């Protein structure tokens, strides 16, 4: 069999071009120099979770821009190198590897979604590159076998805290006796919150009478909601992200479910109101990281609006926090030496970030942060409770 001349030419052209491209990309390596500090952003920029990843990235970019506008760190500018985890854990590993080996970043922020951070954390540990997860709230992200993963940090509170807060709120404040869990079974975040809620709610004397599940990107929730309606529970706990939450709340009310709906920080996006409608959202409560009318977050909200022309959502706020935390640590560590940086991150104390103050718990690499519970009243958030962390 002969091999066509034309195809060989085409083939070699394509392969040649790619190899050159690869080499050029490879040449970009070589960490810090005198003028800049390279940091990596590994986020979900394409795929199903792109709306969360890009929002967090925008928040991070704002934090870095503010720092650079203020003269950088010791006169050095921060350069952000982005990589795409394509909303898939294996690709998160690939992207992290690229940032570390080809772009030579010394610290990384991201990804947004827990499963992707879990995959990335091993690469970070192997290469001794600290990472900060802005919004992965599952406890396993930073802790393994009871010990903190040395290079993995986060800048948000964790699920047990949030789940407990909501369970207490449901049984004490709302006097709920029965609850239904409606979980996103494709998300670690949702499942782990559901578990904590159930445990704490039942410990407080309530009863979980039904558990239902949906999958991220579903459009139609009416079948499961029809079933949930039959349970006629006092509250329905829906720990999920805003895109699905908006549709769930809308369809639940359309089917005539009058129960109080409870949620978590994934709800905290102006889009929820747009999708569900203000009326449907009455009688819903969720826990989140900050209350938009609080004094201390006004600076961040204003800056974000000026930069992007829209209100931040919770992912953007947490991305900004992670950026602030990273910048502060680099400043105190006097550079990006991994050991020093880890130490500086562990010593983060009373740092003013976008959503409040954070102090790092060196034993778990989880920050100690306050949480708030908000109620939706005719499409406007109202502060229901502010919970200060213990200790």
């Amino acid at each position, binding site marked *: 069999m002969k*091999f066509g001349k034309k*195809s060989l030419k085409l083939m070699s052209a*394509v392969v040649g071009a*790619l190899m050159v491209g690869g080499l050029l990309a490879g040449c970009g390596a070589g960490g810090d120099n005198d003028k800049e500090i390279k940091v990596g952003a590994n986020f979900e920029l394409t795929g199903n979770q792109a709306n969360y990843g890009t929002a967090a990235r925008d928040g991070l970019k704002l934090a870095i821009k503010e720092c650079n506008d203020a003269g950088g760190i010791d006169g050095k500018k921060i350069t952000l190198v982005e990589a795409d985890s394509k909303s898939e854990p294996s690709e998160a590993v690939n992207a992290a590897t690229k940032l570390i080996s080809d772009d030579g970043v010394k610290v990384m922020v991201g990804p947004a979604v*827990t499963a992707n951070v*879990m995959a990335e954390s091993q690469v970070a540990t192997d290469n001794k590159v600290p990472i900060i997860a802005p919004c992965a709230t599952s406890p396993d992200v930073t802790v393994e076998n009871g010990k903190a993963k040395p290079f993995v940090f986060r800048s948000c509170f964790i699920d047990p805290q949030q789940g407990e807060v909501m369970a207490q709120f449901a049984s004490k404040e709302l006097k709920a006796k029965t609850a239904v869990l409606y979980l996103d*079974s*494709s998300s*670690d975040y949702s499942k782990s919150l559901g578990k904590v809620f159930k445990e704490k709610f039942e410990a407080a004397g309530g009863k979980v009478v039904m558990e239902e599940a949906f999958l991220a990107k579903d459009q139609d929730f009416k079948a499961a909601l029809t079933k949930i309606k039959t349970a006629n529970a006092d509250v329905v706990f829906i720990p999920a992200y805003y895109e699905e939450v908006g549709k769930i709340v809308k369809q639940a009310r359309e089917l005539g479910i009058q129960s109080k709906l409870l949620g978590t920080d994934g709800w905290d996006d102006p889009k929820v109101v747009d999708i569900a409608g203000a009326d449907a959202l009455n009688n819903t409560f969720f826990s989140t990281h900050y209350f938009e009318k609080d004094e201390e977050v006004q600076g961040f909200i204003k800056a974000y609006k000026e930069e992007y022309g829209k209100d931040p959502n919770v992912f953007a706020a947490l991305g900004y926090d992670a950026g602030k935390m990273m910048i502060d640590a680099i400043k105190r560590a006097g550079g990006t030496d991994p050991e020093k940086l880890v130490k500086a991150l562990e010593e983060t104390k009373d740092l003013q970030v976008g959503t409040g103050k954070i102090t790092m718990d060196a034993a778990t690499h989880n920050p100690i942060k306050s949480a708030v519970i908000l109620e939706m009243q005719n499409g406007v958030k109202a502060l229901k409770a502010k919970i200060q962390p213990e200790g």
Partner: protein
Amino acid sequence: MKYLRKNDLIMLAFSLVLFAVLQVLISERILSAFWQLNVLIVGINIIMAVSLNLINGYTGQFSLGHAGFMAVGAYTAVICTANFHLPFIVALLAGAAAAGFIGFLIGLPTLRLQGDYLAIATLGLGEIVRIVIMNIDYVGGAAGFKGIPHNTNFAWVFFIMLFALFFIKNFVNSNHGRACLAIRENEIAAEAMGVNTTKYKVMAFTIGAAFAGIAGGLFAHCFYIINPMSFTFMQSFNYLIMVVLGGLGSITGSIAGAFVVTFISAALASWPEFRMIIYALALIALMMKRPQGLFGYMEITNASIFDKIFRRGRV
């Protein structure tokens, strides 16, 4: 026959040289970690593409469920290594066996279907496999399986890939392979000539699935974590793209297709917003220029290279 064997030996020698060169590049760290990882991914994708080519290209059965078999292999293998601490090779073989078995089970009834009906049925089966895995808590459900040992290295991938290539090449050139080709060209005629079409279709399906299972095992031990999201029908499309881009019914083509697709994706990693747009345009343009794929039915063999080098004028 003798001629063939000599050629095989030359190919083998060439492969060993290639392996040595790449291994040096990797162990001397001349290739960055990112490109090392992508070399592994290329190898795994070649196994996937070649095995899918056996089903789609050589036997002419339009399958869109290859990622499902990969998932079966991947999960079986990680259960073996992470939960039962079995040796890696045993885990890979178990993955292959499980995927092959599922391929056989699925193959028997569905291969009655033809063309696009088979395509959508296999797509559905791949999704069913994924959804079932997602609902098994023992393997981590939707959150994925964590704590997988990092066993896959270049040598594993390369030699398994080599084995897959030689196996499928020899299969295609055997009696069985010719029966498969006959089915592709015309199923009814093949049947009339006494080819047991069901038997050969199921055989091709099972072998293809088994190799996808091995590739799944290798893939899983590359990334510390596997997640059902990695095995959606979009992933099956990806392998189909590699096969068609390279040329249906050409092993060389599958290698080229896997290579081109993986490296386009890796080379564009620095421009995430444009990566998929450029990839899409490249795909459309390539199909436009070469609808039969880069290689069509052609193969690079020693003889063709020999022709190229020494008899230039007469090609």
